[in-house]
């Protein structure tokens, strides 16, 4: 690689190539096939470029890398400041990895307003990447809000049945919650005179922010509410099942795969980064909410008659692990949380793709409509089983590593957390395998299901990368953990001295 020049523009390239592609696409003639191919090429290009980030990341070096910091607007003092560390670089790759799969999986299921769909998808990708690479709070907030509009439009324009209701609910929930974060950001700007993440963090650490001690609990809550709704943490989760059930497959994949991670990423970066004291003080009830999320999400998932809703509730359960891991303040817990973020993105993304493939054939997500599908669709059944097992947390697949690390971190923090959290693993085995059994085993009860076609080449192309990633992440987690661990360590370093005595409810 040709050194520093690429390193400084790589983040801008990765962030804006999809949006630029989307803009070009807007002026394309309405030839659907060309549009799909072009979108795929753009998404793959962004993926290829994003691989540069973890590949050339200096593990030993603390702080942010590939930084670019240019003054942008003088009043208010806004900088175009981007940079990634071991955590965010992988989240960027997760985004660029899932988007081409989304393009593939939407190839045929989106046949109306194709151009609009792919334009929105690419703009969404840019906004998501932007969230993970921004180091200026204004820039961050812009991308954060910018994810909302294309996502809501994807749900509202291309979703199923009650799509408008779901889109509006999604939009209002997350928009209203992020107003609290905006208030916090503006307060910090007013006192610290900067939107810059690093500047503000240093100012806080050196006690240079006037009135911080009094305002910090409120600021912590302001940021936390915005992130908790996004995660979603119990009891802010009610928008998620609606959004997922009505969203088109690609929307669900990015929603579960990446959008939810914006929330946990935000907690790790901003709540822990700006407010270590308050994080410690509030950890007990956050951990309890996370545990409720793990167990409640799993129990509700178990009784869902709708496959997509089941996967949606399983996300609430899995994301509970992530929050628990982050607020255990242990190196293992935080690294595990980040690992789950990636693993969940891939396995749940794949689950939604699989559900979407079935929907394309039968136009329903009702589990009771199926049964015995292993006979007409053996390859599909095999893929489904593989992904279910990875999501359940079978050793040697990706789900296991993260959950193990989080649970070990939670045990260190408080034994009860570990024990309760561990039940979540059992629950997830229950609801996923039971669902699998009802859909694939037994006799084919519905005559329509007898002649369902198995996977075609395109669907294979969409599923293989996800399955391969699930396996590699399970077998060689160190490839990821090597870069995640230093970043996780530095995220909890302000809490370092308290890591041993930690949190007591």
């Amino acid at each position, binding site marked *: 690689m040709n050194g520093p020049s690429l390193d400084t523009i790589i983040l801008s390239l990765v962030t804006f190539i999809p949006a630029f592609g989307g803009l070009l696409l*807007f002026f394309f003639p309405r030839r659907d096939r060309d549009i799909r191919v072009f979108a795929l090429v753009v998404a793959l290009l962004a993926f290829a470029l994003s691989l540069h980030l973890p590949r050339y990341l200096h593990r030993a070096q603390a702080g942010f890398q590939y930084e670019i910091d240019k003054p942008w*607007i*003088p*009043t*208010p003092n806004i900088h175009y400041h981007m940079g990634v560390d071991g955590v965010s670089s992988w989240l960027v790759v997760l985004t660029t990895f899932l988007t081409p799969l989304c393009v593939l999986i939407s190839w045929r299921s989106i046949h109306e*307003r194709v*151009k*609009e769909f792919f334009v929105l998808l690419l703009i969404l990708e840019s906004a998501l990447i932007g969230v993970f690479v921004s180091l200026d709070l*204004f820039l961050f*907030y*812009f991308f954060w*809000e*910018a994810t909302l*509009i294309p996502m809501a*439009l994807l749900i*509202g*324009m291309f979703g199923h049945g009650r*799509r*408008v209701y779901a*889109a*509006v609910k999604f*939009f*209002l929930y997350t*928009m*209203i919650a992020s*107003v609290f974060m905006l*208030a916090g950001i503006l307060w910090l700007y*007013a006192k610290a005179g900067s939107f810059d993440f690093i500047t503000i963090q240093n100012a806080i650490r050196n006690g240079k922010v006037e009135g911080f001690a009094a305002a910090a609990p409120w600021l912590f809550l302001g940021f936390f509410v915005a992130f908790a709704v996004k995660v979603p943490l119990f009891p802010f989760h009610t928008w998620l099942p609606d959004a997922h059930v009505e969203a088109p497959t690609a929307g669900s994949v990015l929603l579960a795969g990446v959008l939810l991670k914006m929330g946990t990423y935000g907690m790790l970066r901003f709540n822990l980064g700006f407010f270590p004291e308050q994080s410690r003080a509030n950890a007990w009830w956050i951990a309890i909410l996370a545990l409720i999320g793990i167990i409640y999400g799993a129990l509700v998932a178990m009784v869902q008659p709708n496959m997509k809703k089941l996967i949606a509730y399983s996300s609430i359960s899995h994301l509970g692990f992530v929050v628990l891991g982050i607020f255990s303040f242990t190196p293992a817990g935080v690294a595990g949380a980040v690992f789950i973020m990636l693993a969940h993105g891939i396995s749940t993304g794949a689950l939604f793709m699989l559900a979407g493939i079935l929907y394309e054939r039968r136009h329903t997500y009702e589990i009771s409509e199926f049964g015995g599908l292993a006979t007409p669709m053996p390859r599909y059944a095999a893929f489904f089983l593989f992904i279910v097992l990875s999501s359940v947390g079978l050793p040697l697949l990706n789900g296991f590593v993260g959950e193990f690390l989080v649970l070990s971190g939670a045990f260190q923090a408080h034994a009860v957390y570990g024990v309760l959290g561990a039940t979540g693993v059992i629950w997830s085995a229950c609801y996923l395998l039971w669902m699998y059994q009802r859909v694939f085993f037994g006799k084919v009860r519905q005559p329509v299901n007898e002649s369902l076609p198995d996977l075609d080449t395109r669907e294979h192309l969409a599923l293989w990368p996800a399955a391969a990633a699930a396996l590699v992440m399970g077998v060689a987690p160190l490839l990821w953990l090597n870069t995640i661990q230093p970043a996780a360590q530095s995220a909890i370093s302000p809490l370092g001295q308290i890591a041993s005595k930690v949190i007591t409810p």
Partner: protein
Amino acid sequence: MSLAFQASQALPRGTDYLRILPELVLSIFGMIIMVLDPVVDQRRNQKALGTLALIGSLAAIASTLWQARAPGLAFWNMVQVDTFSVFFHFLITTITAVVILTSYEYMEVQQIRVGEYYALILFGAVGMCLMSSAVELVLIFIALEISSISTYILAGFRRRAAISSEASIKYFLLGSFATAFFLYGVALMFGATGSTSIPTIEQHLRSGSIPVLAYVAIALMFVGLGFKVAAAPFHVWTPDVYEGAPAPIVGFMSTAPKAAVFAVLLRIMFQIHAPGRLGLIWVAAALSMTLGNIGALVQQNVKRLLAYSSIAHAGYLLVAFAALPQNGIPSAMFYTASYAAMNIGAFAVVSHFGGAGERYVTLEDYSGLGRRSPVLAAALTLFLLSLIGIPITAGFFAKFYVFSAALQANLVGLVIIGVINSAVAAYYYLRVIVVVYMHDPRDESVLPAVPLELGAALAITALTTIYLGLLPGRVLDYASRSAGDLLH
């Protein structure tokens, strides 16, 4: 002082005329259009008169830019050219040009005889330009009347629609009532200070105790000007007039005269150091924001919805008037420009989509616009997002500057009301976007293609909206310098 010298003072000099050059240019082009109107063949030369008006407004823009190099006083200190007046001249003449661009197609589709339409727009612009450079209350009143009378007539230009005549009459009756208030205020101010010249009034009010009469005068003038900018509680005419008036004219009315009146208000409130400013503004701003947004929540007609939204935006803008001068003036100027860009754009879409007789103006008509015309829908979405105040659009920084100016003046209560209102407002703007993209079209008929002129207008307003949202620095800098000029 010798008699001969006084006599030479009594005649305007050459430079005096240069200081009103944009007004002169606009008047001359307006008169040419009036003269040519009966001569040209209406059916074939609809566009000729429009193009003439467009050239006139472009010439006015050019003369404004030229004027910027020679600031100074003219006509016995009644007119002042400085960065402040140049800002508003540029804004008003640009608005005029863009509105003329949006009118081309509209007039053809509505089959309205263009005739004096374009002339009236230009004459209106003369009044508005003069308002922003006049520093003498009587001259301001005359300019206000020039601008108002043109807009009264323009509001009733859809002669075949009863609702348009109603709009015109209503606007005229209430409007003349309001200007009477303004005039009464001017008279009282003369009684209180013995002058109608703004610098003299300022000196007088500063040098001694402030007479009660001055408070009353300011309040009365505020009533008159508040009516013109559609600020509550003087806003009741707005929805009816906006609903009835031709859509491009609503785009014009809701931006250009407002910009001019805000310029006058800035002079009166800040340059005079108006006594009792805070209380008046506080109440009017809070009421406008709240009533405007609540009213907009229940509207089914897009023009009425935008009318209520414009009341609310007048409220946000008034917040700046309660702030300290050095922050309040630039933020108000920035807001005026931003609002002009996004609102004219929105009304350009409305006027194209309305079709003959403005048949399609309800929210339901807009369902599925995203499918029927992706370009119009995308443009409308941009303008609505900017009206909400989403980052990277002009609307965001407009609100940001206004609210942070108010915070610096410790107006926490007003800012909280403003922020809550912005959140409420998001709902009804988003409702339009939801209808446009997520509802199925009621009518699958193909929309007429966007003509070149309208496309240009949309492009100008959209690019300005994004430019002010992406790089607000230069415009804000200029506005800050103007504030310095205004306050010396």
